[in-house]
């Protein structure tokens, strides 16, 4: 009996030691879930993939989507030529670094591209009747080690990739962002837009941690490229 008691206290003690960091963590920073994984740091894409669909593979376009894609010309009507925001998901494919911050109720992604700050709201649902915006309305939740980000509320101005893959204001992007290891971050995208595509499809981007890097100022003050769309 005594022996069993000792055994179970030892087990309790071991359990307490095991959970102590989590408990202390919660006490020290009550605004941040004790179990929230750490994604903070400066990250840079590992490979630049201008086109989400390789040559020879046709995206599942609707007729409208295909017509939009045919109008796209990287040297004429890429919204980025006017230094407009990239929109989501393209912002996450830009070959410039991003810094991830975790603050109470939000994950913030500070992109060197245009010095845009992407807000991912952790403890709310999408607002009702969203104004269409370049980067949409992003809400996130943790599923284990993965930050799941749901974004809607887009305008139809941006491209999904660097070669003109189109979308409409019905775009819905789900991202699963997780650390594959200490130095590697992966963002898996599911892209859904019933006006432009006949079915949802997926893409993925890997990033490497860049210790010592700082995000630089990026203002298009000498843009020699003109946006001729209108």
């Amino acid at each position, binding site marked *: 009996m005594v022996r069993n008691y000792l055994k179970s206290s030892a087990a309790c003690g071991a359990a307490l030691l095991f959970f102590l960091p989590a408990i202390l963590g919660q006490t020290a920073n009550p605004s941040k879930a004790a179990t929230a994984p750490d994604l903070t740091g400066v990250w840079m*894409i590992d*490979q*630049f993939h*201008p*086109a989400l669909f390789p*040559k020879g593979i046709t995206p599942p376009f609707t007729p409208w989507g295909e017509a939009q894609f045919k109008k796209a*010309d*990287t*040297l*004429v009507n*890429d919204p*980025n*030529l006017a*230094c407009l925001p990239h929109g989501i998901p393209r912002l996450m494919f*830009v*070959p*410039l*670094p991003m810094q991830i911050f975790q603050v109470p109720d939000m994950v913030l992604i500070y992109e*060197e*591209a245009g010095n845009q700050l992407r807000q991912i709201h952790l403890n709310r649902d999408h607002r009702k009747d969203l104004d269409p915006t370049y980067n949409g309305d992003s809400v996130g939740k943790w599923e284990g080690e993965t930050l799941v980000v749901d974004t809607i509320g887009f305008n139809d101005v941006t491209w999904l990739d*660097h*070669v003109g893959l189109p979308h409409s204001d019905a775009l819905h992007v789900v991202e699963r962002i997780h650390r594959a290891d200490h130095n590697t971050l992966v963002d898996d995208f599911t892209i859904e837009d019933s006006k432009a595509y006949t079915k949802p499809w997926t893409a993925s981007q890997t990033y490497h941690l860049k210790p010592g*890097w700082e*995000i*630089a*100022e*990026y*203002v*298009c*003050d*000498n*843009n*020699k*490229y*003109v946006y*001729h769309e209108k």
Partner: protein
Amino acid sequence: MELTPINPEHMFSLHGPEMKNYSFSGGFAVNTRRFLFVFALAAGAILLPGALLAHHSTAEYDMTAVTPIKGTVTKFEWSNPHAYIYIEAKDDKGNAAEWTAELASLGMLARVNWKRDTVKPGDAITIYGNRAKDGRTVMRLEKVAFANGQELSAQVR
């Protein structure tokens, strides 16, 4: 010198991993490209020419050949979304020719040791890069060589 508007005839096509189609167009082309390409493969293909230009695609440049142009710097624009070097050079017939070299954005350049005074007006340099497909005297810079023989890459990775 201002860049004229872009000729909208090319879709984005050649990127690092797809450079197997490259060929040399004679004349100014140098075969350091082959060395660089093989080196990149050997190094795990981390050298990504396509990644240089964050702001717009490389579609307007002939990514299959590197052209060296020797001249004197007239201006260095240290600016976003791209930095630009302007040099006064000579063409095949000895006539004056003004060249413009386009670089990456300032943040990425700073990470590969470029500074706002890396090149200065009056410097004698050679610029190496991928020239515009439409024949303008414009290139996407790969590297510069200084009068003392030192070189500095403009590749960001």
